[in-house]
């Protein structure tokens, strides 16, 4: 139960992905906001109006995968660091994830892939690093690749040696 463990169940995680896996041949935002809190920057930051919360900003965000382009602006914007972008390409899973620790990874490095329970599940390759811009408000977003079977398990990266 997430209120006791802070870990979303497999069913909860799956419910945030497109039902049809083929949709992920293009990048899509995965929004893991499971409880109602007063917050709506994902909705107001999306340039494609793909995310809907509505007038009651406590409502849980709904995403329209037809409109989502996987641009990742919501990943930068979410105060809860609860959004990532997922994509499947050539049998690999690609993710854009927010990362707020130092040091910031470098492109080409191999880091550890971590699941929602904080366990290392695999290693992964750092594909791209978009640092927070001049303003302190943007969060660094890192693109990584790893084996496709970890699609529903992966959530963040960890520096090798920090196991």
């Amino acid at each position, binding site marked *: 139960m997430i209120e006791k463990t*802070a870990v979303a169940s497999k069913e909860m995680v799956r419910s945030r992905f497109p039902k049809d896996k083929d949709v992920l041949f293009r990048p899509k935002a995965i929004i893991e906001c499971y409880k*109602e809190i*007063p917050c709506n920057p994902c909705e107001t930051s999306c340039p494609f109006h793909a995310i809907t919360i509505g007038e009651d900003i*406590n*409502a849980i965000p709904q995403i329209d995968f037809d409109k989502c382009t996987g641009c990742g602006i919501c990943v930068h914007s979410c105060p809860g660091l*609860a959004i990532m972008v997922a994509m499947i390409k050539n049998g690999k899973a690609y993710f854009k994830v927010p990362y*707020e620790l130092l040091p910031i990874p470098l492109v080409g490095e191999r880091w550890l892939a971590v699941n929602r329970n904080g366990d290392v599940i695999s290693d992964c390759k750092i594909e791209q690093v978009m640092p927070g811009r001049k303003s302190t408000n943007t969060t660094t977003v890192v693109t990584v690749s790893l084996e496709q079977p970890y699609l529903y398990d992966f959530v963040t990266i960890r520096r090798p040696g920090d196991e």
Partner: protein
Amino acid sequence: MIKRDLVIVGGGPAGLSAAKVALDAGMSVTLIERFNQLGGQLIKQTHKFFGSQLQYAKTRGFDIARILIDDLKGYDDQLEILLDATCVGFYPDKVLTVYQYGKYMKYLGGSVIIATGASEKVLAFENNDLPGIYGAGAIQTLMNIYGIKPGKEVVMVGSGNIGLIVSYQLIQAGVKVKALVEAASTIGGYLVHASKLKRLGVGFLMNTTVKKAIGKDHLEKVVTVKLDDRWQEIPGSESEIDADVLCISVGLSPLHQLLSMAGAHMLDVSELGGLVPKKTCDYETSIDHVYACGDVTGIEEASSAMVEGRICGLMAANHLGFKHPEAQSLEDDLNNQLCVLRQGPCGEKIRCGLKKVGEIYD
């Protein structure tokens, strides 16, 4: 005696927001702040805020402080800011005594807004005065104002938003969070904050509290104990965690003392964190032209404190005949913002508490 249209006690999110609106309405304002800079707790907050754009959502707390402080620029002939100044007395005739740099001063406000915020609750256990045991606010002050790491390994007590946020800040500063201890069976704060910690490898010890601290000159070990469903210690369930820092984040109490001293009608409301002033829907306390806003009226998020502060500034101005250029539309908009912030399940406690002090939410 220095006379002002409005004296505001507290330069945090509520006080700063109140000042801005009152200045726009044309009032002369003195803002009294105990610390050596304005911003209150905002200056220690490195996380991005929730809420909507109207309350600076997705902006980091210390940047919000900068925005609110910048909003007060350009009012030099109307505004006096006293830093390092403590309001030590407040009387029913709206006289305030202020201590600053070894001197006492007396102020008389046409209106007074009390926006003193809150103080941290403590936890009773054996050796809780050992060096290395801090409140969460002290840890944030050390790290985020003075740039000092409090230690190497920390045990956090309390899973409310402050406990969760400060744990995350400690990890960002390179401090190891050994465990997060929570007496209740469920996590108190936002789950998105808790999930952030969980994926960084922090263990949550639920139904657990601190039994005692061990150490000679400084904290060395924390002894935890499991609690049953009646919050009683389970004998034999003790366990030891090596740590040089214990951070206590078990809630806040409104800083009501000035209002109590002036004789404002106070109510003890557990949902709001303790003793709070009874107030009208115009934020006026039982003393005419004395208002209160922010955490001193009930423990809540800074987002609400800012909105309450603006309403309070507007009311203080209105009642003394100062006309804010957008008074009516502003009032409607601000009240709507508060309703929206509080209407979800997270707002249930505050809605329930506010009903008891005279504000009605349906």
